[in-house]
């Protein structure tokens, strides 16, 4: 399970870096003050719980697991005056169907493993050349039934009772004209070995199926990440963990709460006086009914404070610092023609240094309209480098306060942010060289430069990577802002 869309919000800056932010090993210690109690929340409505079966089956097939596999050891023996030997083998009954049915506070899981027809070679001694016979094995379909329920104090599903296996008897026969005088000695032993192997395989097979269902539901684990910025001195860590008592299965469906947060160590390229950001704190949504009333397989709600914390901590860790060597390229020959396009290359390189805090908030949304975020940067420092005389020279340095609205279109196939509005609320020119544009004129042009830069920065963001749990892997999607949280709806996968 991965919350890539959350990480994406944090690492928007990394998308802007040609070389990206450097991933590093995550810190096993999670500081609890940074973790929001209900940072994220999953919900699978009761009618969609049946989707867990095919979803888990797909995951198991992709992983090459889920079959009922029996391991037969080598068999050696004597039949009359002849010795025989059958090499060890592995017989697998593929998973034919996996279904999940909602019961009261339980999930009823039923699996069927397909009939298997196989044959093994029997070597018979003495004889020159060695004689062989064919041992035919038919394993009829096998069925498993198990009920799952939330574990006490743990965010996982466990069997409510012993799993029930229904297996028909194995049919074993030797090929015609096999010279063994007493073939029943061998076939009997093989049947016995198969029954024994089935008993051994039952438990791990059931566990694999349950594991697949948990993964399909998004219960399987934690999401962790850690990155360093271009100055390599700060660090941003991210953790999203299923809450200990966060799993609920009731008449409404399956509900899972995640605690999560961003934290790390500050970079010297970030403002010195920034304190760690507070964690997400809004209450979980619980009621996921979409405004349009459409059905869905998976609902996800996020506290936008998590996004604010992500950006704030990314800024503090230096991930939003963008040095000149990785600066954004911006054509300026029309805005600052006294230098660009005449004595310097038409395009400038712009370095970005957050010199103050950042704010992020989710704006109230209207039905059918894009979800909008308000993002504000205080004292954003911009260094504009011109390429002239074969090198890079800083010809303009600005301090600006920027307020922007980013829109996320719910109807887009691959949703991505667009710049809905941008305002440079304060512009201070700290340094200017080689430009002939006058001070007042330069300020006006700088505002246009900032607008252009903001548009470019947002355009460079890649579409959101929607990696929901398998149960919600469908292509259709809806987004809403509700009760101060951001809500995403996913449909089931229909091949």
């Amino acid at each position, binding site marked *: 399970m991965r919350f890539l869309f959350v990480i994406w919000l944090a690492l928007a800056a990394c998308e802007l870096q040609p070389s990206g932010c450097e991933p590093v090993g995550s810190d096993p210690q999670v500081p609890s003050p940074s973790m929001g109690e209900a940072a994220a929340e999953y919900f699978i409505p009761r009618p969609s719980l049946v989707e867990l079966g095919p979803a888990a089956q797909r995951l198991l097939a992709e992983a090459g697991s889920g079959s009922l596999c029996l391991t037969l050891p080598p068999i050696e023996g004597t039949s009359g005056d002849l010795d025989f030997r059958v090499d060890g083998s592995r017989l697998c009954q593929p998973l034919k169907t996996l279904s999940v049915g909602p019961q009261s506070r339980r999930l009823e899981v039923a699996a069927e493993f397909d009939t298997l027809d196989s044959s093994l070679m029997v070597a018979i001694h003495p004889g020159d050349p060695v004689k062989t016979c064919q041992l035919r094995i038919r394993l009829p379909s096998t069925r498993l039934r198990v009920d799952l329920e939330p574990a006490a104090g743990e965010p996982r599903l466990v069997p409510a009772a012993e799993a029930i296996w229904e297996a028909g008897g194995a049919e074993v026969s030797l090929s015609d004209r096999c010279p063994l005088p007493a073939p029943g000695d061998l076939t009997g032993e093989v049947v016995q070995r198969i029954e024994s192997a089935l008993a051994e395989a039952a438990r791990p097979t059931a566990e694999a199926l349950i594991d697949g269902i948990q993964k399909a539901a998004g219960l399987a684990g934690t999401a962790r990440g850690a990155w360093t910025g*271009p*100055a390599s*001195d700060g660090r941003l860590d991210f953790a999203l963990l299923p809450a200990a008592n966060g799993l609920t299965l009731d008449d409404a469906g399956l509900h899972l709460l995640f605690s999560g947060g961003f934290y790390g160590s500050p*970079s*010297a*390229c*970030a*403002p*010195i006086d920034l304190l760690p950001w507070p964690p997400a704190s809004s209450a979980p949504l619980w009621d996921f009914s979409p405004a349009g009333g459409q059905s869905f397989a998976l609902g996800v709600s996020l506290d936008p404070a998590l996004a604010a914390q992500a950006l704030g901590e990314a800024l503090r860790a230096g991930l939003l*610092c963008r*040095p*000149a*060597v990785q600066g954004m390229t911006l054509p300026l020959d029309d805005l600052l023609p*006294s*230098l660009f396009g005449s*004595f310097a290359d038409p395009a400038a390189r712009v*370095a970005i*240094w957050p*010199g103050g805090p950042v704010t992020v908030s989710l704006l109230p949304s209207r039905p059918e309209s894009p979800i909008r975020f308000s993002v504000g940067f205080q004292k954003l420092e911009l*260094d504009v*480098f011109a390429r*002239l*005389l*074969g*090198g*890079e*020279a*800083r*010809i303009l340095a600005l301090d600006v306060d920027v307020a922007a609205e980013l829109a996320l279109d719910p109807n887009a196939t691959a949703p991505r942010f667009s710049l809905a509005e941008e305002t440079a609320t304060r512009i201070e020119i700290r*340094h200017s*060289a*080689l430009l*002939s544009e006058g001070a007042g004129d330069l300020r006006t042009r700088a505002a246009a430069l900032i607008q252009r830069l903001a548009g470019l920065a947002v355009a460079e963001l890649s579409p959101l990577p929607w990696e929901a749990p398998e149960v919600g892997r469908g292509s259709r999607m809806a987004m809403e802002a509700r009760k101060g949280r951001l809500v995403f709806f996913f449909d089931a996968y229909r091949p």
Partner: protein
Amino acid sequence: MKALALLALLISAAAAACSSSALPCGGFCPTGEYCNSEENRCLPIRPDACPEDLGRYLSLAIDSGGRLWFSSYTESYGDLVVGVENPDGTLQCDYVDGRPAQVPYPFPSQTPPPIQGDDVGRWSSLALDAGDRPHVAYFDSTHGTLKLAERDDAGWHIATLPEIEDDGGFGRGASFALDSAGQPRVAYYHDARRELRLARRFAGGRWEFEVVDGGSEVWPALAIDAARPIRLIVDSRDREWLAYRDQASGALKIAGQEPSGLSRWELDPGPDAGAFVCAARDPAGNMALAYTARDGSLRYAANRSGALQFVTALSGWAADESGRLRQAPAGQHCALAFGSDGRPRIAVLDAARLALRVVTLDGAKNPAETLDAEGPVGFFNAMASRESEIRAGSCRLQRNASGQLVCQLRLYRIPGGTGKGGATP
């Protein structure tokens, strides 16, 4: 009789009209001058003074009398200028190449000055021989050739280097040195063949050429605004050493003469290494070099016990006034020279403040000082040292009356040098 008198008058008038005194400038201007028909007088094609734009592709050398020589390209005329610093600090310039061979007479009045000749002088690289005579290699942009200007008692002698092939321009990025016999060595790019080449002249005027690197389609031609991506040093044993940027991979390489021939080594795999390279002979007679690295820092490499040792001379990251870490490219337009204390000095452009800085590598703190804060300055830096002096030169950019960006040549004295090493752009 009356008719004869009238005829004589007419002839006289016509003769007067055709006399030399009626032609602009009297019908003649001496060599080096042109006829300004508006002012009706001969004016020098080039002024006595140094050009307004001076300091591009700067190269410095100090003669045995301690006098500073410089060569430069001037955008004012598209000429190669070679000059000296007078004892009072004023500059004396010689427009060595680039003046038009023939000026139309009378010069069309609507043609604005200056009167352009060939566009020559980029990548000028200067060395003085044992007799303090200047030799300059430079690129002829008009013809796409590499030229050599050498002065003796009779004046300047200008020659185009012969080339093995005639299939394209050659000579960009020129770097020049003299061997102990005073014979020229020039490293340069060959555009058509996409090669880095080394040319050697021998007694009698015979030239030999050697391909150092390249020859691949992926080597792009050197941009006309590229600063100095090649540096050539002749060591104390007369072996050539080149530090250069691999145009294809962006790696920083060196090439040097070994008993088996020319060998190449990759010092920094890049990419984006060696956009600027500077080199000098260290006190032991070996090549030392500095270059801009991919991370925006300036790296220095020198021979230590037979192996190159690297240090970061200048980090691209530095604290600003409020202590916050900021990054700007370090080491652009670098120049390198050694003082008598054996310590290298590197002059660079401070790309953030547009100032000229000098870093002294002392093996510990590597202090960097601002040599000139009256920016924008720090472009096309060059250095030279001899005995008690280290000298540096730089281009300060400014706008002239017509709004053009021009280089103002600024020269500096740097304390701490009493050695014998020299810097060669």
